[in-house]
C-alpha cells in the first residue's frame, strides 16, 4: 500500500454511538436552521428600521461596548492577579478562582436579584447612594458586565499563563518597573488573548437577558436591549420582528465564533 500512509488509531468509536451523537448535533443545529429558513428575509430592512427596534439595537450596541470596555479595564488586572496566584497558598487561590467563575454558572436572574440587593434603593450599598441605579441604562451595563466579564478574565488569564514569563524578567534586568513591564511587555504579548476575550465578552453582553431584565427592567430606549425586545415582540402582535432580531443576534454570534476560530474558548458557553 504505497499511497496511503498508515494512520495511527486515536481510540475507538462504537458505531452505535453515532445515533445519540447525531441526535445531539441535530438538537444544536436544527433550531438555528429553522431560524435561517423561516426568517422574514424580504421584510428584514423594514422590520429592523422600526423606531422601537432601532432604538434597542442602538442601546444594545452602546451598552455592549461599554460593558466590554469596563471588563477590559477591570478584567485584565484581575486576570493578571489570577495568573500570578499560582504561587499563593491553596485556600485564597481557589477562593479567588471560584469567585471569578461564579457568574459563569450562576443563573443570570440570580445575578440580577443579587445586584438589586446590593445596589437597589434599599440595597446594601444602594441605600447610601444619592442617585438610583436600578432600571437605568447604567444598570444594564452593570448587569452585562457582571455576567460577561468572567469570559474576558479567563481568556486573558489563559493567555498570560501560556506566555513566556522570562520576557518579563528580561525587561526587569533592563531597569523596567513593574508597571512598565505590564504595559510594554506583558500586555502586548497577550494582545491576541485580550482581543479574543473582549469579543467573547461583547458577545455575552449582547445576549444578556436574565440579569438585565431583573435589575434594569425593560423600558424602551433606556433598558430595553435586543434580547428583551426580542422576547417582548414575540409575546406581542409582531413576531416577525422577533425573528428578525434573533437573526441579527445569531449572525453576530457566528461572526464572533468564526473570528476566534481555533483560539482557546473558556469551557462554559453563553
Amino acid at each position: 500500500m504505497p499511497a496511503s500512509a498508515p494512520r495511527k488509531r486515536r481510540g475507538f468509536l462504537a458505531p452505535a454511538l453515532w445515533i445519540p451523537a447525531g441526535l445531539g448535533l441535530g438538537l444544536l443545529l436544527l433550531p438555528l436552521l429553522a431560524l435561517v429558513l423561516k426568517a422574514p428575509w424580504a421584510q428584514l430592512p423594514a422590520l429592523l428600521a422600526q423606531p422601537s427596534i432601532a432604538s434597542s439595537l442602538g442601546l444594545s450596541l452602546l451598552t455592549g461596548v461599554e460593558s466590554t470596555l469596563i471588563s477590559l479595564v477591570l478584567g485584565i488586572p484581575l486576570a493578571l492577579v489570577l495568573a500570578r496566584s499560582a504561587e499563593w497558598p491553596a485556600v485564597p487561590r481557589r477562593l479567588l478562582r471560584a469567585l471569578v467563575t461564579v457568574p459563569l454558572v450562576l443563573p443570570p436572574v440570580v445575578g440580577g436579584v443579587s445586584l438589586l440587593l446590593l445596589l437597589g434603593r434599599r440595597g446594601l450599598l444602594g441605600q447610601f447612594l444619592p442617585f438610583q441605579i436600578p432600571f437605568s441604562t447604567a444598570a444594564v451595563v452593570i448587569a452585562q458586565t457582571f455576567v460577561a466579564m468572567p469570559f474576558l478574565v479567563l481568556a486573558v488569564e489563559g493567555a498570560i499563563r501560556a506566555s513566556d514569563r522570562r520576557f518579563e524578567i528580561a525587561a526587569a534586568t533592563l531597569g523596567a518597573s513593574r508597571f512598565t513591564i505590564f504595559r510594554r511587555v506583558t500586555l502586548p504579548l497577550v494582545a491576541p488573548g485580550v482581543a479574543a476575550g473582549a469579543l467573547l465578552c461583547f458577545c455575552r453582553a449582547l445576549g444578556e437577558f436574565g440579569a438585565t431584565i431583573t435589575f434594569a427592567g425593560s423600558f424602551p430606549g433606556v433598558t430595553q436591549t435586543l434580547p428583551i425586545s426580542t422576547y417582548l415582540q414575540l409575546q406581542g402582535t409582531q413576531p416577525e420582528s422577533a425573528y428578525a432580531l434573533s437573526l441579527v443576534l445569531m449572525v453576530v454570534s457566528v461572526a464572533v465564533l468564526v473570528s476566534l476560530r481555533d483560539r482557546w474558548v473558556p469551557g462554559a458557553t453563553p
Partner: protein
Amino acid sequence: MSLTATLEVTRDSFDLDLSLAVSPGRTLALLGPNGAGKSTALGALAGVIDSTGSIALNERRLDGLPVEQRRVGYVFQDYLLFPHLTVLENVAFGPRSVGVAKAAARAMAGQWLERLGVSDLAGRRPAELSGGQAQRVALGRALAASPELLLLDEPLAALDVEVRAEVRDELATHLKAWGGLTIVVTHSFDDVAALADDVVVIEAGRATQRGTVRDLVRAPATNYISRLVANWSED
C-alpha cells in the same frame, strides 16, 4: 569598578556556595558542566533567583535590591528579544524604562546598533534575525541600559556550529570595546579562551579551581578540567 560576591542558593538538585571577585576591566568566565550551578549564580547576581550572601558592586550593595534597580545587564542564552518590538525598539527599551524620552532613547539605540555593526537591522522584528544577529542585538539591548555589570549566559550555545567561531571573535571585540565588568557563563573552553581573562570552574555548586586561562591549561585541578583542556587546542 569591581565586584565581590558570595552567593548561597539552595536548590532541589544542589546547593550553590560560591564567592566571586571581578577586578576592573576584566572578564570572568564561570566554567562548568551542565547543572553545576553556573546559570544559578548569574540569576542570583541579577536578582532573578533568590539567594543569601552578599553582593557588592562598585561600593553598592546589590543583595536586597529588586532586579530593576541592580543595573546588572543580562544577555540570555536564547536572547529573549521582545518579539512584538523592532530591533531598534528592543535596544531602546532600557533607556525608555529609566525615563529617557522616546526620541533620545531611539537615538541612543541607533548609536549602539551602529557600534555593533547592525544598523541595517533597526526596523526588523526579532523573528527575522539570524542567531548571530540576534545575539548582537541582545548585547546592544543590555549595554544600552548602561549596566555596571554585564552577565552573558552561554552566549554562543544557541548558534550553529559553523558560525560560532566568527560570532565568538566579534563578541570578544565588542566586549573589549565596552570595557566594563563582565561575567560569562559557558561550558566550552573555546569561549573561555576567547572571551575571558580569569576563570572560576564550578562543579556541583562549588568552585573547584580559580585562576587565569593559562593557569588552567598549565595545571588543571580536576578530571573535568583536564579533559576540557585536553580537547582544546590553542591555534
